C-alpha cells in the first residue's frame, strides 16, 4: 500500500518502466515449438531464462504485468545468490548498488543481547549478505534479459490455459496485441506465491500457517547507522511486538514490526496508524528527524510447499513451489537456487548433453532444501512470533536471562540462510568418501572459494559443465591424466583445474597454491580429487582417484546412468 494521493507505482526513489505488449509471430499464425516457456518475469523467472541462455537455450518469458513487481519485496541477497548472478553475467550492477553486510544486533528492552556475525572467510569473493530492493533486482536482471538474444520477453501476456501432453505443453496466452497458443517442450512456472499454473493443474501447497502478523514498511530517512540487521525484542516503541530494521540503498529503510495479539489488522494498516507506530519505533532508535513513508504491507509466516516440484513437463521454481517465512531471508535466495539447479540440468538435457532422467533430481534436491529451510525457519519463526503461551514464556525467560547471561543468547540468532548441502542427493553417490578426509567441504556442499595471488578467485575458473580440482605436488601421473581425458570425453564442457601441480597437461589450467591455502581449505593432500557440478556444489571428493567411482559420478550428474 502507498500513502493517500499516491498511485500504486508512485515511488519516492524508483521509476517503474512501462513495457508494451509486442506483436509476436504466433499472432500471424506462425506456430513455433519453443524449447522452454517461462511464466512469470520476476527475479526467479528471469534468472531461469538467463541460466538457460548460458547453455545456449532459447526461452519465451511471459508476464501479465506491464512493469516490475510492486507486491513481494525481497531485500536480501545471500552469497550463493551472488555466485548465481555472476555465472549468468549479471552481477556487476548488483555489486555496485547493493549494500553488503555481515553483522547484526539483537536487543531486549533496549539492551543489546546478541551480536550476529556471519562467517566471512578470507578467500570468498562476496560478502555473506547484500541488501537491495527487489525493484532493482528485477531491473538489473531485466537489463541482462534485454541484452540476451536468446530470451524472448513478452510483457502484458497472461497465461489463460495450460494443457499438458505427453511430449509437449500447450499454453493459452492473452495479450492486448491478441490471443494465441504457445507450444513448448518444457514450462517453468515462476508465477509466484499465488501461481495460476498451480491452480490450473489442481495442485496445492501443503504445510503450516503461523498466526503472528508483521507490518512491513519501507521508509526514506537520513539515518546514520551501518548496514546491519537489527532485531528489537520488547522495544518501548512497539510494546508487545518485535521490530526488525534493515538498511537499503537510496536511504530507504525496511521497518518490520509485529502486531500485538488480537490487534485488528484493518486498523493497523491505516496510514495514520502506520505513521504513528513507525514514528514511535524511530524515536526509540534515536531518529528524531523527518522521514517519508514509501510503502507498507502485512505479512504472516507460512511454511508451505508442493509435494513434487515437477508435474510432467512443468517445473515449479521459486514461490510457486514453496512459501517460507521471511525471517532468515530464504524466499528469494532459495528461488534463485531453484532456477540455477533446474537451469543447468534442463540446459544440458535440451542440448542432448545429458539424458532426461537428470531432471528427476530437481524436485528431490530443491524440495530437500525447502524442508531444511522449514526446519530452520520454524525455529526462528517460533522465536519471532511465539505461537502459544508456552513459547511466549520460554522466549521471555530466555531473553530476560540474556541480559546478564551468555548461555541463552544464541536462541535469538536469526539463523540466516545457508546454502543447502546435497549430500543425500542421487547426484552425490559417494558421500561416504568424506570419511577419508579430516577437513574440507563435504560431498554435496557448495564449494568454498579461494583468492589467488593475482586477485582472481578459484571458482572464476570453474566451467559450466563438470569441473575437476586435482591436487598434486609434481606432475599429474599417468592414471590421473587418463582420468581427466576420460572426463573430457564424457562431458564436452569439462574443465580440469590442477592445483599446485608443477607440471602441466594440455587443456588443463594449472593454479598455483604456493602457501598451500587452497589445499588447506579443501583438506586436500597431494592426489586428492574434487568433482564439482555446474552449480559448483561438490558431486564427490576422493583422497586419491578411484576412476570408476569418479566416472560414474560424472555420468550420473549428466543423467547418463541411473543413480
Amino acid at each position, binding site marked *: 500500500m502507498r500513502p493517500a494521493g499516491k498511485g500504486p507505482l508512485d515511488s519516492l526513489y524508483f521509476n517503474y518502466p512501462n513495457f508494451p505488449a509486442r506483436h509476436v509471430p504466433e499472432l500471424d499464425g506462425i506456430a513455433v515449438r519453443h524449447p522452454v516457456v517461462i511464466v512469470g518475469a520476476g527475479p526467479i523467472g528471469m534468472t531461469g531464462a538467463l541460466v538457460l541462455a548460458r547453455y545456449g537455450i532459447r526461452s519465451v518469458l511471459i508476464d501479465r504485468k506491464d512493469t516490475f513487481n510492486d507486491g513481494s519485496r525481497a531485500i536480501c541477497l545471500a552469497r550463493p545468490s551472488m555466485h548465481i548472478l555472476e555465472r549468468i553475467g549479471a552481477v556487476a550492477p548488483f555489486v555496485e548498488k547493493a549494500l553488503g553486510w555481515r553483522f547484526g544486533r539483537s536487543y531486549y528492552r533496549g539492551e543489546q543481547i546478541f551480536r550476529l556475525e556471519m562467517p566471512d572467510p578470507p578467500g570468498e569473493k562476496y560478502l555473506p549478505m547484500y541488501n537491495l530492493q527487489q525493484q532493482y533486482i528485477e531491473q538489473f536482471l531485466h537489463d541482462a534479459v534485454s541484452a540476451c538474444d536468446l530470451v524472448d520477453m513478452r510483457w502484458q501476456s497472461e497465461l489463460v490455459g495450460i494443457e499438458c501432453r505427453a511430449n509437449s505443453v500447450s499454453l493459452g496466452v492473452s495479450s492486448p496485441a491478441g490471443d494465441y497458443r504457445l507450444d513448448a517442450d518444457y514450462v517453468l512456472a515462476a508465477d509466484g506465491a499465488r501461481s495460476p499454473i498451480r491452480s490450473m493443474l489442481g495442485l496445492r501447497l501443503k504445510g503450516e500457517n503461523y498466526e503472528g502478523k508483521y507490518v512491513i514498511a519501507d521508509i526514506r530517512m537520513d539515518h546514520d547507522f551501518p548496514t546491519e540487521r537489527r532485531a528489537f525484542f520488547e522495544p518501548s516503541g512497539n510494546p508487545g511486538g518485535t521490530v526488525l530494521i534493515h538498511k537499503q540503498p537510496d536511504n530507504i529503510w525496511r521497518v518490520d514490526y509485529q502486531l500485538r495479539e488480537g490487534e485488528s489488522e484493518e486498523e493497523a494498516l491505516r496510514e495514520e496508524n502506520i505513521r504513528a507506530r513507525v514514528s514511535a519505533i524511530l524515536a526509540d532508535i534515536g531518529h528524531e528527524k523527518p522521514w517519508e513513508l514509501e510503502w507498507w504491507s502485512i505479512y504472516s509466516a507460512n511454511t508451505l510447499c508442493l509435494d513434487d516440484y515437477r508435474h510432467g513437463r512443468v517445473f515449479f521454481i521459486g514461490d510457486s513451489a514453496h512459501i517460507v517465512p521471511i525471517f532468515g531471508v530464504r524466499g528469494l535466495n532459495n528461488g534463485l537456487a531453484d532456477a540455477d539447479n533446474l537451469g543447468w540440468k534442463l540446459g544440458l538435457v535440451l542440448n542432448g548433453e545429458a539424458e532426461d532422467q537428470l531432471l528427476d533430481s530437481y524436485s528431490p534436491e530443491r524440495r530437500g532444501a525447502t524442508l531444511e529451510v522449514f526446519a530452520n525457519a520454524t*525455529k526462528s519463526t*517460533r522465536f519471532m512470533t*511465539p505461537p*502459544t*503461551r*508456552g*513459547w511466549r*514464556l*520460554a*522466549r521471555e525467560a*530466555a531473553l*530476560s*536471562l540474556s*541480559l*546478564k*547471561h551468555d*548461555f*541463552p543468547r*544464541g*536462541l535469538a540468532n536469526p539463523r540466516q540462510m545457508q546454502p543447502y548441502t546435497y549430500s543425500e542427493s542421487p547426484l552425490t553417490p559417494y558421500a561416504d568418501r568424506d570419511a577419508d578426509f579430516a577437513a574440507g567441504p563435504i560431498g554435496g556442499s557448495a564449494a568454498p572459494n579461494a583468492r589467488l595471488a593475482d586477485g582472481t578467485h578459484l571458482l572464476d575458473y570453474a566451467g559450466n559443465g563438470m569441473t575437476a580440482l586435482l591436487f598434486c605436488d609434481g606432475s599429474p601421473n599417468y592414471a590421473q591424466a587418463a582420468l581427466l581425458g576420460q572426463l573430457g570425453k564424457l562431458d564436452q564442457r569439462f574443465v580440469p583445474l590442477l592445483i599446485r601441480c608443477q607440471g602441466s597437461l594440455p587443456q588443463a589450467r594449472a593454479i598455483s597454491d604456493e602457501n598451500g591455502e587452497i589445499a588447506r581449505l579443501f583438506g586436500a593432500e597431494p592426489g586428492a580429487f574434487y568433482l564439482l557440478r555446474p552449480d559448483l556444489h561438490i558431486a564427490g571428493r576422493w583422497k586419491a582417484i578411484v576412476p570408476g567411482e569418479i566416472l560414474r559420478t560424472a555420468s550420473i550428474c549428466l543423467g547418463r546412468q541411473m543413480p
Partner: protein
Amino acid sequence: MSAMPFEDLEAAYEMLAMAIDSAGAQRETLFLTRLVLLLSHELGDITAFRNAVGAALEGLE
C-alpha cells in the same frame, strides 16, 4: 556449572515451551515448580541451586 552444547540447550528450550502448553494455564505454575524441584534433586548441589535461584530472581519484574 557444566556448559550444555547449544543444540541441547535449544532442545531443552523447545521441550520447556511445549511442556508449559501441555500443562495448561491453570497448572503451569505447579508444573514449573515441580520441574525445578526435580532438577534441583538431579543437580545434587545446593550451592549451585542457590546461585540459580538468585540469578532467576534477579531482574524479575
